[in-house]
Each structure stands twice: as C-alpha cells, then as structure tokens.
C-alpha cells in the first residue's frame, strides 16, 4: 500500500481544505459555514450525535451531494486524473455483491476503481478474510462484509480516504485493523477523514471535529 509516500522534505503539498461549507438536505440546513484543513499525514475524526451531519459532510466531500455554499479542495491531487479518482469513499453501503466470491468482489473493485492494482490476495490476508476468499460474499457476516469493503483501501491505493463509521459491525480485532490501516496510511502521507462514534485508537492523537445538530 505504498503509492502515496515520499519523504517529508520532497513531499508535495497535500490536504483536504474546506472553506465556508454549507450543506442542506431535504430543505434543512445541517451544516453551515464550516472551515477546516486536514493536511498530509493527518486524520480528522468527525464526531457528534446522530443527525449532526457527519455522513452528509462525507457525502459532500465525496462529491455525491452538492454543497449549498463554500468550496472543497483536494490540494495536491493529480490533475491528470478525473476528479475523485484519488479519493476513497467507504460508506454504509459496502458495494459488495452477493453471488460473487470475496476475491471476485475485490478484484472487480480494484479493476473498477482503476489505477495501479494492489495485491488482492495479500489484501484479503491483511483484513483477515483469506479463509473466506472463495466464499460467496452473500454468506459473509456484517463484520466480514465491512472488512471486505475496507480491503478496497489496500488494492486501489489512493491518498485521500473518506470513511463513514469504519468500525461499524467490527469486533475489537477489526477495530484494531482499522486503526492499523489508518496509521499506515497516515505514515505514508495520506489524508483521512472519518466519521466515528468511538475512539479509533490511532497512534497519533487525531484532530476531531464535533458537529452539532442545527435547529
């Protein structure tokens, strides 16, 4: 999982920068005038009660919903590629197909996302699914499905990660896996924004942004 590194000295600038962001869903303003910058090698955790707009913010960052106001910049993105071709978005819907095996799912996702394809077998070992690689993904448990979704981060290396509740449905070991993945990514110079209700247990204390439910 390496494409994003470079020593700190010669590393190009990289950050997710948000300025004056306003998001509206269903006619209701849920985020207003939000500003932050998450630079290279750092993570930001989005916290806050249900309905505070964590998922909506991630959807907006991922380009799925159009913000009402403000701008979102991916600093240092490869201008040659399509917008969001270096952004990973892993949300509640895992994009895993039943009737395909875990391995086929991952191979398809790697090919679909494009770019340099990482080692599918190694990724399955890392997320702890090597024993289920040839099992129909429809038979995977919720936690295993989540692990398979996370394996996408390994087979299609991209610098910017947007993770919505990455530890949802995972056991303690799985939560540790998420922390290891994020730590390794940050050490590689990646940028991570994750919505979570739990302390992810990252090596460095990440910045955290507490969203509040607007009236």
């Amino acid at each position, binding site marked *: 999982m390496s494409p994003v590194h470079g020593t700190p000295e010669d590393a190009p600038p990289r950050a997710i920068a948000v300025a004056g962001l306003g998001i509206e869903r269903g006619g209701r303003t849920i985020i207003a005038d939000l500003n932050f910058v998450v630079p290279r090698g750092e993570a930001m955790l989005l916290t806050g009660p249900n309905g505070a707009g964590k998922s909506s913010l991630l959807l907006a960052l991922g380009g799925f919903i159009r913000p009402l106001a403000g701008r979102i910049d991916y600093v240092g993105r490869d201008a040659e590629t399509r917008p969001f*071709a270096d952004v990973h978005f892993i949300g509640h819907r895992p994009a895993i197909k039943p*009737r395909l095996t875990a391995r086929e799912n991952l191979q398809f996702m790697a090919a679909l996302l494009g770019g340099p394809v990482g080692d599918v077998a190694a990724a399955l070992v890392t997320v702890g699914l090597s024993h289920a690689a040839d099992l129909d993904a429809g038979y995977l448990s919720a936690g295993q499905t989540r692990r398979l979704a996370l394996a996408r981060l390994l087979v299609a290396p991209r610098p910017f990660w947007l993770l919505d509740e990455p530890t949802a449905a995972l056991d303690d070991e799985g939560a540790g896996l998420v922390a290891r993945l994020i730590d390794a990514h940050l050490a590689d110079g990646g940028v991570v924004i994750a919505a979570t209700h739990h302390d992810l247990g990252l090596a460095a204390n990440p910045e955290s942004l507490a969203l509040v439910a607007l009236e």
Partner: protein
Amino acid sequence: MSGFVALIGRDLRLAWRSGSDALTLVLFFVMVGVIVPFAVGPDPVLLKTLAPGIVWIAAFLAMLLGLDRLFRDDFDDGTLMAMQHAEAPLALLIAAKVIAHWLLSALPLLIASPVLAMLLAMDVSTFLRTVLSLLLGTPALTALGTIGGAVTVSLRRGGLIAPVLILPLAVPVLIFGVSAIAPAMSVNSATTALLLLGALSLFLLVLAPFAAALALTVSED
C-alpha cells in the same frame, strides 16, 4: 478501460449465477407468442399479418420489464458510488452497463425468436427480417431504458415509473421496427424503416450514457 471490461464481465457473471432473471424475460417473450393464437384464433393468414406486431410488442414489454434491474442493485449496495469514484468516466462505465444489459435482456430474446416465429406461422424471409429488425431496434430500447433507469433509480417505486417514462420515447422504435417486417410494406419502405431503426439506435446509444451519467450524479441529492 479495465473498469469497462470488468463491469461487463461482472454483470454477465452475476446474471449467469442467478440464472433466472434472463430466463424470466425469455419466458415472458415466448408466452405472449403462445397466448396470441388462442386469443385471436388459429387462422394462419391472420397470424401472419399480426406476427410482426406481436413479436415487437412481446420484445418491447419484455425489455421494459427487465429495465429496473439495470441500476437498482448497484444503487442499493453502493457500487454506483464507487463507479463515480472510478478512474474511468462514469459515462464509459454506463456504456459498459448498456452493453451488458443488451447481452442479458435483448440477446436472449433474439435467440428465442425462432420459437415465436414458429408459433405465429411466419415464413422464413419474414422471420429473418424480424431478427434483423430486433437486432437493430433493441439497442435503442436498451439505451432509452438506461436513461429511464438512471432517472428513477433513487425513487423507491422507480421500477414502475421508468417504463411509463420511456414509453412515449420508445414508440418510434416500435413503429419502425414493425414497418421493417410488416409483409404489407414494399421492400423499399421496409429497408427505409430498417435504416431509420439503425440510425435511431446509434443516436440513442451515443446519447444514453451521458444522459444517464448526469442523472446518476445527482441521484444522491
């Protein structure tokens, strides 16, 4: 480009493993042909006159039925979001979906059409023209279905709305499709109809991926 190929491969593999979906459409298609002689009487002359229209109605309805599965699953499980973050443009990936959908919904109908021809007492030359007109016309139906499916994918009952939405747009396909095989038509006008049908298909095939991509990018909003 790898995403394009992978998407076609995946859709074919999924359809092969679930099996019944494509078969349902074929059965529907053939069933219409089985029922019509009972409804209008077994008069071979009458059936021969009606045959082109019946084949096209059967194909038309079968394709409308299959339309909902084009984007529904990918939308529900989040694959569409991944498609929007792919390195390949969304329109290209949708073109892959269109090809896969044609292979899975129109090609089986073409393969099953000899059965229908037999049931409707078609002669060989009419049958060949039927296959040709289906071959040229079904891509247009698939393309229109792609737009309809993309526009309605975020609606809960979109499966019913999409066919209604594209019905008026698909009527020209039906008209030219039937004129291309109708025995009453002269050879010249049948050829014209075939050419127009092909033109319609080419035009819609180019337009549909872009229109559908636009519809899908706003579908989360």
